[in-house]
C-alpha cells in the first residue's frame, strides 16, 4: 500500500537498512514481505518464528533518528501482539491506537483488545473509527454501510479519547492500490480531513522531548 513492492532489504554496518519510500527519506518501512523471494509466497510460520522476526525488526533494523515508529498488527491478541509489546517495552512506547469499524460486532471484539492493552500495560492513546459511512458520489447521500456509532461507544466504554471517524473513500483505496501519495495528491477528499485531524491530535498529545 505504500508503493514499496519488489524492494529488498540490504545489510549495512549498523544492521538491516529499512526501505525508504521517498527521496527525502522522511518515511522508512520494514516488512517481512521484503524478505520473500516471490511476492506470492506464503509466510507459513508458527508463533515462535514470528516472535523472533518481530524482535529482529525492533533490534536489528538500523532505523536511525526517528520521530515515530508505527507498528501495524494483525487482528487479535496473540503472539504478534505480545512479541511487539515485549520488544518495544524497553523503549517506552507512547501507546496504542485502537481501530474499529462502526458495527457492534467489531466493538465486541475490539473491547477485548482494550483488555489486552490494559493487561500488558500499554496506554491506549485513543480509538479511531474506520469505514465510517460512505457518501454517494452521484447524489451525496451518506449511507452507514457498516452500521454506526461503534467508535464513540468503544471510546466511552474504555474511558479513552475518541480521535475521529474515517469515512469509506474510494479515492483513498484507489490511491493506496496505485501507489499514490494520498496526502499530497488528494487533499480535497473526504478521508483526508479525517486522517489529518487524527494525526494532529496524536502530534498534540505527544510530548516534545522524549525521555
Amino acid at each position, binding site marked *: *500500500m505504500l508503493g514499496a513492492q519488489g524492494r529488498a532489504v540490504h545489510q549495512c554496518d549498523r544492521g538491516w537498512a529499512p526501505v525508504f519510500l521517498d527521496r527525502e527519506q522522511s518515511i522508512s518501512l520494514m516488512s517481512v514481505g521484503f524478505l520473500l523471494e516471490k*511476492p*506470492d*509466497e*506464503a*509466510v*507459513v*510460520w*508458527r*508463533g*515462535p*518464528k*514470528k516472535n523472533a522476526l518481530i524482535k529482529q525488526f525492533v533490534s536489528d533494523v538500523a532505523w536511525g533518528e526517528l520521530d515515530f515508529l508505527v507498528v501495524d498488527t*494483525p*487482528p*487479535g*491478541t*496473540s*503472539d504478534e*501482539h*505480545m512479541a511487539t509489546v515485549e520488544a518495544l517495552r524497553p523503549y517506552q512506547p507512547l501507546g496504542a491506537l485502537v481501530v474499529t*469499524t462502526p*458495527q*457492534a*460486532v467489531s466493538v*465486541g471484539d475490539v*473491547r*477485548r*483488545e*482494550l*483488555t*489486552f492493552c490494559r*493487561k*500488558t500495560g500499554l496506554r491506549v492513546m485513543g480509538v479511531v473509527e474506520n469505514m465510517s459511512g*460512505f457518501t*454517494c*458520489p*452521484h*447524489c451525496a*447521500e451518506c*449511507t*452507514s*454501510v*457498516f*452500521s454506526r456509532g461503534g467508535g464513540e461507544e468503544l471510546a466511552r466504554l474504555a474511558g479513552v479519547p475518541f480521535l475521529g471517524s474515517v469515512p*469509506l473513500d*474510494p479515492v483513498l*483505496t*484507489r490511491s*493506496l*492500490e*496505485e501507489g499514490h501519495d494520498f496526502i499530497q495528491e488528494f487533499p480535497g477528499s473526504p478521508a483526508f480531513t479525517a486522517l489529518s485531524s487524527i494525526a494532529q491530535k496524536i502530534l498534540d498529545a505527544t510530548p516534545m522531548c522524549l525521555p
Partner: protein
Amino acid sequence: MEEVPHDCPGADSAQAGRGASCQGCPNQRLCASGAGATPDPAIEEIKEKMKTVKHKILVLSGKGGVGKSTFSAHLAHGLAEDENTQVHQSGSGWSPVYMEDNLGVMSVGFLLSSPDDAVIWRGPKKNGMIKQFLRDVDWGEVDYLIVDTPPGTSDEHLSVVQYLAAAHIDGAVIITTPQEVSLQDVRKEINFCRKVKLPIIGVVENMSGFICPKCKKESQIFPPTTGGAELMCKDLEVPLLGRVPLDPVIGKNCDKGQSFLIDAPDSPATLAYRSIIQKIQEFCSLHQSEEENLISS
C-alpha cells in the same frame, strides 16, 4: 507442517534433525529426538469423531476485514434453511450451542465470563484448543462443519489442516475484496492451500460494489484496480464462486445476530449468497459421490 528448509530430509527419515539442511530449522530438536516420526494420536481420534460429520469446509482469507466471519455465519444460516440439513459452525466448546434445531455454534467466546475478557494466547495454547474443538466436542450427526479462521497462514490454519488430515476436509472457500491489497494476500493463501494439499472450492469476492439506497447508482468503494477476483481466479485456475455486493442491511443483521438472508430476501447480496451456497453444496456432493465411487469400485 512447520516451514521446512528447502532440502528437508523429511521428518520421518533417518537423517531427520541431523542433516546439514536441518541447522536452524525450528523442528530440528524435535526431529532429532525421533518425535517427528510419531504422528499425534489426536489425528486418529479426530478422524473417528469426524465420521459423523459429512462435509468440512474451511473459510479462509489472506487478508483481514474482508468478511470471513460474516460469510461463515451466513453460509451456516443458508445451509440450515433446509430443515433436513444439520449444520454446525465450528469455533470451540464441548457441547454446541444451538441457535436453531439444526444449527449449532461453538466458539472460544463461550468459554469467557465477560465480554471484555481477552484470549491472550500464544500459538501452542491455540493449537491445543483447536485440537479439543475437533476431538472433544459432541458434534453428533452433522451434514456441514464450517470452520471460520483468522486471516493469514499461521498456527490456526496449520493446526486445523493437520488435525483434520485423516478426516478429510472437503475444501476451502477463500474470501477477498476486489482490491489488489487483498488479492495479493489471497494469492499467498492459495499457495498455502496448494502446499498443504487443501482443495480449493473457490473464491468469493466480497464488498463487490455498492448500490446507493437513494439514487440506486453503483459505486466501487473498493475498486478492482487489477481486475478483481475474476482475473486472479482465471490466472490461478481457481473457481470464482461469486461476488457479494455491500449492503448496509448485512451489518445491521450481524449486529442483531440474525440471518440477513431471511431479513432481506430480495437484496442482490442475498441472491449472490444463495448462488454461492448452491455451488458449495454442489462441490461437496460431487466429491462425496466421487469418494463413494472409489470405495465401491
